[in-house]
């Protein structure tokens, strides 16, 4: 098994991993300071006959230092995180011209609505596939998230993307896949007895292959995107 985050596969995954690593280093230092300090004190100041504790009520200077250092650190972390947060999840963050895909979550299925040949959702040539998210590589995809019944959560670990799908709300999330791959989409919010089986396949296709298939409608689209991206890369015919 891996002892680290899953391999990164979206444009912002690297930034998130950097923040994760940065926080890990900072908290790691804090952890070592505290735990090593505790262990040191436990050994060095254990009770022995004839010893008496040093009588003090504290030191304002020390307390100012150990309040200020964490305060400054978290403010810097906060500012850095906020920039990244706005880039990924901000109101205006969805890139213009992103390829739209409707993702409708219901107990216990993901229904993906593709825009059809015209590239727009909400038109007659839209069609829906169950538990299969096909996306092109290297192009931003805008996910129009909705939910039928209860709250679900759209989670693709390799994309570092998670977004709840809430009934009654229309939520946009976006990502841009960076490599041809087949991945899994999971539900991250308890949605009932079938929560653990609410899983879909995510196929990231070479852009030319995807474009060729996206001109098809309904059944042909799914049949065109076969059997898997890996085979598409190694020269398999795919349809």
């Amino acid at each position, binding site marked *: 098994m891996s002892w680290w985050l899953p391999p990164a596969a979206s444009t912002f995954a690297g930034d998130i991993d950097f923040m994760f690593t940065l926080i890990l280093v900072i908290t790691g230092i804090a952890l070592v300071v505290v735990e090593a300090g505790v262990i040191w004190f436990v050994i060095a100041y254990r009770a022995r006959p004839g010893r008496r504790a040093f009588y003090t009520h504290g030191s304002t200077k020390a307390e100012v230092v150990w309040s200020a250092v964490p305060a400054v650190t978290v403010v810097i972390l906060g500012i850095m995180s906020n920039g990244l947060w706005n880039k990924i999840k901000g109101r205006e963050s969805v890139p213009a011209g992103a390829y739209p895909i409707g993702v409708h979550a219901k107990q*216990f299925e993901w229904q993906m609505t593709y825009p059809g040949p015209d590239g727009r959702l909400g038109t007659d040539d839209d069609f829906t596939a169950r538990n299969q998210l096909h996306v092109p590589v290297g192009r931003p995809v805008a996910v129009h998230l909705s939910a039928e019944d209860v709250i679900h959560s759209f989670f693709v670990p390799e994309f570092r993307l998670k977004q709840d799908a809430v009934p009654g709300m229309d939520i946009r999330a976006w990502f841009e896949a960076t490599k041809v791959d087949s991945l899994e989409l999971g539900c991250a919010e308890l949605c009932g*007895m*079938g929560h653990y*089986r609410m899983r879909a396949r995510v196929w990231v296709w070479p852009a030319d292959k995807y474009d060729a298939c996206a001109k098809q409608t309904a059944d042909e689209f799914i049949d065109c995107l076969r059997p898997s991206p890996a085979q598409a890369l190694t020269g398999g015919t795919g349809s």
Partner: protein
Amino acid sequence: MRKLGSVAAVAVGVVALGLAAWSRQPADQGSGATVTGKTKFTGTKPAMPKIDMSEEPKCKAKYTAPPTEEAVVVNPNGTLANVFVYVKSGLPAGYKPPAPAGAVLVDQDGCRYRPRVLGAMVGQTITIKNSDGILHNIKAKAKANRPFNISQPTVMSSTKSFDKPEVMVAFECNVHGWMRAWLGVLPHPFFGVSGTDGTFSIKGLPPGAYTIEAWHEKYGPQTATVTVTGTETKTADFTYAAK
């Protein structure tokens, strides 16, 4: 106290059964009248959408041709399958139904319910089986009865029963949105379902004038009236037109 109560209940039950046996012959399905018929279908048979089972390999493997939805199943001989036909009214007052025989089985096989339409008596055991070995949940959307929503993660069976008449109780699976079954719960054994030949038969009817209803999930109910005596067989055909 509880023990005493149950002894009393059993005693009362035995006496009541004895009285019933003495006062009149219990309905004997072998000896009564029979109503049979065909569920005819006219017009173009509607095209059923294909079911995409590509994300359920275990189910997909059970089919050679791509499976389709089954809201309307027209038999090769031009009849309509999955019509639930039952005696809606007309049974004599004070009619005592026989105890339900055995259990009825609903199987989840190939990510479809087998059978899709079935009947059961009030209080009869309904065995729900999962032959697929993948998760199915069974949501019974009963209205007169207590609804239930259970899951079967693997090959297993569960038993349920309904204690009030209800036509129809809809079953659905939320893991596989296309899965539907319909169960008619009746206080008597006089029901049938049109099969692959489009015929049904209701046997063992006591003499009387009956309203027979035929129910189809898409085309709705139709009724016919039939009067039977003795052990005769009468015919009641129903015709459904494509919409």
